Every structure is written in C-alpha cells, then in structure tokens.
C-alpha cells in the first residue's frame, strides 16, 4: 500500500507565499504607497514603531503594507529587522522639556502655566461614522479655519516641576547607575525600574491597556490623576566621537504622560513602616512628599498606551497582590512579538508530543481497567 508522506513542505510554503503576495496584488484598487500609510494611517504607523521599539516611519509603513495592516505582524517584521542592524551606540537621554509641543493637557489642574493645548485629538469629537469619507474628494486647506501658527508657543514648564518646588513630589535624584538594556540582558526579578520602563515602552498596546484598566477597576490600587500629557517632537542627540559635543541627529515624535499617585501615607512611610525619602520644599523645610509619579513614554502618538504605561509603572513599583503589580506577570506577557509568537506556535505540528501523550493516557486507562478488573 502507498504511504502518506509529509513531504513537499517547501513546495507548500512557496505556494503559500505566492498566495500571500498575489492576494494583495490582485486587488482592483490602486496599490498603496508608503507615503499614503505615513500620512493617512499614521496612528497605525506610530503603533508599529512603538511596539517594535524602532523609530523609522518609512520602515514601519513598509512593514504595515507588507503585513496588509496586521499590526502585530508589522511590529514583528520591524523587530526582526533590528537584529541584523549594527548598533552604533546610545544617544543622550531625550529631554521632553525641550519638546516642540503639539498637544499638552493636564487633568490635575484647571489652569497651568502655558495653558492647556488640546491640539489634534479625537477625544472630544463625536464618534459618528462620516459617510462623506467613502467617496472623498480632496478639500483644499484654505477651507479650514486653522489655529494661528504656533511660532510663538509659550514655554511649557513641567507641571511636575512645579509640584516638586512645593515639596509635594519627591525631588529627582540623579542616578549614578547605568540603565539596564533589555535588548542585551535578560530580565531578572525584581527588575530595576529602567528595565521595567523599557519593557513597557515597547509593550503591546492592547495588553497594556487591559492591565492598566484592571488596576483602575479595582484589581489593583493604582488610579492616578494625570499631571501632564504632552505629545510633540523632541530632538535626539549623540555625543560626537571626536569632539565630545552633543550633535542633533534627528527628532522623534513621542507621547509622554506623568501621572500622580498618593504616596503611601501622609507621613511618607512605605508598607514596611520604613520612612520614605524626604524632600525639601522651596522654603527649605523638610517634608515627606505626598505624591509619587507614574511615568509613560512611547514613540509616536499613542496616548492610551502612554497612560497605561504610567499606571503600570506605578503598579509595578508598589508591588502587592494585584496582577498589574506582579512584575513577572506584567513584564513577561506584554511583548507583542513574544506573545503572538508563542500563541501562534500552537499551529506548528505537535504530533510527536501528542503521540507521546496518547501513550501515557492509554497506559493509564489500561491500568485503571486492570485495577477495576482486579477488584471484582
């Protein structure tokens, strides 16, 4: 008799690849251009950059086009590409106080120096499907009432700095330590804050929103007030290898969130009853800070992820029983490449392990029957 062969794997793959490409190319509509994705699907491009941990709009748009809009697949393409690139070095830390602000709000205060700048946001639009977009004709820019050009944007001092001046927020202590690098070292627990923030910064948006949400709803203790959310462009600087001077090599769009949480108690003690860091207010009095910051920073415009990051930053700091406070639970499961990879690996053949498992199940059944028979 003939045998059933599982040969021809490479033929199957090549055929599948052809179908993948054909499917997109057979569309009757016009082929998508990279620029169209960058300009008209920018939120998707931003999310892909954010989850890949690689800032490059063109490459992210390419990945999105190739992945036919599958955000996790696109992030995967970008992240894999990173592995073949040579690492040139580390930039200087970006300074968001130098941000060219496109949007800036505070929930904690009604008025803040510089004012609330709503900017380009859907937050207060009404979510009504706009059927005019189906047969859309380009409308000239002159038809819009544009806000005045922002060449005279006020300087936006940070709300958190104002709180620090009052001693309500702990002073920023300069750190002597090298930040952890999650792309080079494996996480150990408890993870240092730099490692936690890095993992969150390139975490999968949906997973982080779910976990942040759980904390707000009561599966956790962190329900902060946003001190400031700002979105805009920041310069990226490198130290010149010869002169040692900072050189601007480009700029990034980032979303930053600082969220305020009550410190453990008015007296400034942590959960073991040990006195927390004290700070001095502007009158030189020693006070225990009333608030702690949760911090969020992501590539591009992704406000729900940045807010979730600020919640999880704080939740992981305080620890406790909540799932959102369990470092291993959060940090191991929010990476989109790892989570999607392992979930989807179930599609791989597992017939050998299953055969082995059948062997055990059948043996156990045989033993059970034998035992039953023996009893009679």
């Amino acid at each position, binding site marked *: 008799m003939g045998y059933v062969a599982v040969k021809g794997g490479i033929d199957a793959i090549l055929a599948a690849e052809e179908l993948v490409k054909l499917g997109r190319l057979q569309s009757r509509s016009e082929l998508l251009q990279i620029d169209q994705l960058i300009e008209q699907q920018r939120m998707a491009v931003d999310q892909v950059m954010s989850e890949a941990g690689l800032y490059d709009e063109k490459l992210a748009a390419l990945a999105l086009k190739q992945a036919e809009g599958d955000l996790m697949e696109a992030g995967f393409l970008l992240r894999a590409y990173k592995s073949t690139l040579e690492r040139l070095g580390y930039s200087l830390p970006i300074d968001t106080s130098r941000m060219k602000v496109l949007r800036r709000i505070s929930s904690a205060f009604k008025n803040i120096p510089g004012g609330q700048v709503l900017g380009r946001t859907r937050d207060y639009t009404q979510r009504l499907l706009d059927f005019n977009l189906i047969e859309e004709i380009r409308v000239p820019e002159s038809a819009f009432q544009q806000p005045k050009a922002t060449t005279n944007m006020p300087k936006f001092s940070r709300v958190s700095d104002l709180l620090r001046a009052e001693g309500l927020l702990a002073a920023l202590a300069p750190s002597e330590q090298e930040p952890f690098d999650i792309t080079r070292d494996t996480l150990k627990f408890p993870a240092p804050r730099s490692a936690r923030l890095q993992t969150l910064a390139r975490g999968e948006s949906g997973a982080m929103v779910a976990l942040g949400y759980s904390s707000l709803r009561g599966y956790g203790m962190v329900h902060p007030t946003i001190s400031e959310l700002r979105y805009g462009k920041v310069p990226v600087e490198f130290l010149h290898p010869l002169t040692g001077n900072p050189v601007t090599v480009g700029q990034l769009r980032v979303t930053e969130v600082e969220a305020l949480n009550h410190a453990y108690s008015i007296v400034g*003690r942590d959960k*073991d*009853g*040990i*006195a927390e860091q004290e700070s001095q207010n502007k009158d030189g009095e020693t006070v225990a800070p009333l608030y702690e910051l949760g911090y969020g920073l992501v590539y591009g415009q992704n406000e729900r992820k940045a807010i979730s990051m600020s919640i999880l930053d704080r939740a992981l700091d305080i620890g406790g029983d909540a799932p959102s406070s369990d470092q291993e639970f959060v940090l191991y499961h929010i990476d989109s490449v790892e989570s999607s990879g392992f979930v989807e690996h179930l599609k791989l053949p597992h017939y050998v392990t299953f055969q082995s498992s059948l062997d055990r199940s059948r043996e156990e059944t045989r033993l059970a029957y034998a035992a039953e028979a023996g009893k009679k």
Partner: protein
Amino acid sequence: MITETAQKQANVEVETPLLVVENLTRLYGHGCPRCLELTGPETGTNTCSNCGTLVACADVNFEVYEGEILGVVGESGSGKTTLLRCLYGDVAPTKGQAFLKSFGNGRQDIFQASSQQARYLQDFVMGMVRQNPAQGLHLHITAGGNIAERLLAAEWRNVADIRERSGALLNRMEVPLNRMDHYPAFFSGGMQQRVQIAKALANHPVLLLLDEMTTGLDVSVQAGVIDLVKEVQRESGVAIVVVSHDLGVIRLLSERTLVMKNGRVVENGLTDQILEDPQHPYTQLLVSSSNS
C-alpha cells in the same frame, strides 16, 4: 546557667545544651541608638518613639537541652513568634547568634549559615509547625505528598517505602489512612495541624518548633493535639520550643518557660515555679488572669 569554665572548674560532667541563643534581636526599620532604651516592658511599647523603628525582639538569650520542652509565653507583640521565625530561618535577625549541637559541633552560628545549609537545617535538624496550616502545608498536595516532600528531600526514591513511612506518621498522628491521598484543604483545622506535625517529624529532627499550634482550634481539639505532642515527644526524645499566648498550653507542655513582653524576656525559669511564684509584675498579671 552554668558556664563552660565553671564546668571545668567544678570538674563535673554537665550536659551541653542542644541549642544556645545569644542576644537575638530583630528590628523592622532603620534603627537608632535609642531604640532599645525607648522600647521594652518598662516603656510598654515595641515602637521606638525617636525613629519609628519596630523592635520585635531584643537581647533574647536562652538555652534548650536535648529532650526538653521549653515554653515561650506572651501576648501579641511580645516577640515570641519572631523568635521562632528567626530560629527556623524565615527571617534573618538584626543581631545575635545561635548554636545547635548538631550543626558544626555547636560552634557554627546558624544565622550565618549559607542558604544550602539553612535548608539542611530546615529539612533535617528542625521541624516547624505554624499557627496557620496554610503556611506550613501545601493545601493542594495530598496529605501523604506533604510528608513525602520531606522524605524526598532526604533522597528517598521508593514510592512504596515513602507511602509506608508517610502512612505510619499520619497514623501516629491519628489521621485516618484513607485520608492520605486527600488534600488538606478539605481537612478540619485539627487534622491539618496533625498533618503539619507529622510532616515536621518526618526526618527525625532534634528540635521541633511549635508556633501557636493550637490557636484557632476548638478547645476540645486542642487537648487532643497537645496530648499527641506529649506522647510523641516521650517516644522520640525530640526537644521542643512551644510558643503560645495561652498559659494553659504552656503549663501542660513545658518544663521550663520564658515569659516575654514587648520583645524582651522578662522571666525565665521552671514552669511550675513561675506559675506558683511569678517574680515579674507582668508574669504576675498573666498568672492571675489565667487563674481567674
């Protein structure tokens, strides 16, 4: 207490203690030079008013001899549970030493033991029974499996032998054999405690630590557990440190007693003597309220 030099001078054969604890101190917090002065039975508090540090116990000294039962009595905050947890290795003391005859010839401080040595002490030299069975047992591993864990740590590798020994221990603790393969999560409190005791005794430890073992059990059940412990102690000769806030339990079990208040030992002597003629005002209070 007889010192070693005094022994030599007297040229008398005196038994060396199984366990010697010196200056055991445990603080929670940063600590300051006034902590000890500002806490204790005289000030009636465990918390240092100067720096807020909690002095769980301080300057605790005692000995336990082979085969004897030492009681430690006090109310919550007295430091008695902290003492036990330091001995077993749950927490590290802030200061102090402890020496076990069976560890480094009694010359090696058990508080400085490496983590592997500490586990050896927990697996073979000491046994601990906790107030809350959930902390001393795996509630979702069978009763027999809980005891098996000890035997497996001692490298027993024959299932029939393991089950025989587990069965014998459970039987001795009056746990029916047909419950051996059941989960302690579904046992009564009294039975859970008996499984804990069986587990603690699995590898023939020389020292058994009982932390509020009967607290939370019905009074009628308590008596049964206490009787069992006494019998087992007589049979095996294991030394016991029994901690309780209940003077009645201490009275039934221990030959010598330490009385603790606010982290310090306030009285130390033969149980009978302490009960009949308490010296420290706190002990007097304890005894009188236990009698009324």
